[in-house]
């Protein structure tokens, strides 16, 4: 009653069903996904460090800007004002002459 071809189709179908079932079981759909807690900690730490580095860079840039402004002010005032000097009644430690 059953033909040879029919048996082959049945066998192929059974194999497909078998492998699909195998794949489904191998995927362990019942298991909950877990992340290594150490990786989680590292990621948090990395984020913290990045935020701190950004803050430090901002502070350094602000201070450098202030230092530049202060230095420019000093140079400008030094250039504008004559160097401090007065005539005194002391024996000289050294002399200037045509260089």
């Amino acid at each position, binding site marked *: 009653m059953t033909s040879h071809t029919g048996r082959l189709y049945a066998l192929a179908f059974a194999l497909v069903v078998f492998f699909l079932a195998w794949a489904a079981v191998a995927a362990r759909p019942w298991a909950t996904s877990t992340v290594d807690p150490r990786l989680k900690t590292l990621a948090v730490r990395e984020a913290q460090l990045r935020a701190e580095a950004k803050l430090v860079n901002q502070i350094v840039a602000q201070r450098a800007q202030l230092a530049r402004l202060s230095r420019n002010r000093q140079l400008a005032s*030094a*250039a504008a004002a*004559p*160097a*401090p*000097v*007065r*005539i*005194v*009644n*002391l*024996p*000289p*430690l*050294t*002399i*200037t*002459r*045509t*260089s």
Partner: protein
Amino acid sequence: MIETRTFRAMGTDIELLVEADGAERALDGAEQEFHRLEALLSRFRDDSELSRLNRDGSIEPGPDLERVVGMALEARQRTAGRFDPTVHDAVVAAGYDRSFERVAPEGDVAAQVAPTTAAGSVWLRDGRIELERGVRLDLGGIGKGYAAERAAEILAVAGPCLVNAGGDIAVRSGSWPVGVEGMTLELTEGGLATSGRDRRRWRRAGRELHHLIDPTTGAPAETDLLRVTVLAADAVDAEVAAKALFLVGSERAAAEADAEGTPAVLVVEDGRTVLAGGLA
């Protein structure tokens, strides 16, 4: 306690004074700095960076040559060309073609006047110095002041100090009595320099010559001033200002020093000493 050291460099006597005990290392460092800078900036040494620049017309300079040339060009602009580092050929033509100790004090052959290269183009860009064809630099008018400032920076680590490079003086804090034309000035900061025609002079064919070239003529400057001493923010500025005032003669120099508030002592050839720029 003031520690001192004297030695020769850059064709002149160098004097280091520092108010500190055990400043040997700082004194050594300051002395070495003079010799190092002389090796870079001297036009009398074939292997100096400056000589290579003058020979080749361009160079990738070290930081010191780059800085000194930059300062010299800035000074040229600031003094409207009265200070000019491109007078090299004019100085040589006048007879100052070797270190001064070896320049003959007398000679029969008349000095030449080189076509002036005043305002000759010098380019400082992309980490290179390039000279216009035929232009050569003489940094003698600024090099000693620069060296005095660098040495003072080194000495200042040990304590208040004064560096005297043959009359070009740099001071870092402290109180330093310095003799100028029979007076004593008390310096606490800044620089002092004297330029004049009473030293570094020689005669050729009966004519008295000196090393201060007027860039507009290419010949030793003719002025009624014998020498000018200027006090400024540092030794480099003082050197530049002293030369710029020297060229214009006593009357104009006094007026300029007063107008700019630059303390200056002008010695005129008739024997007068004029104080200007608020110095009294």
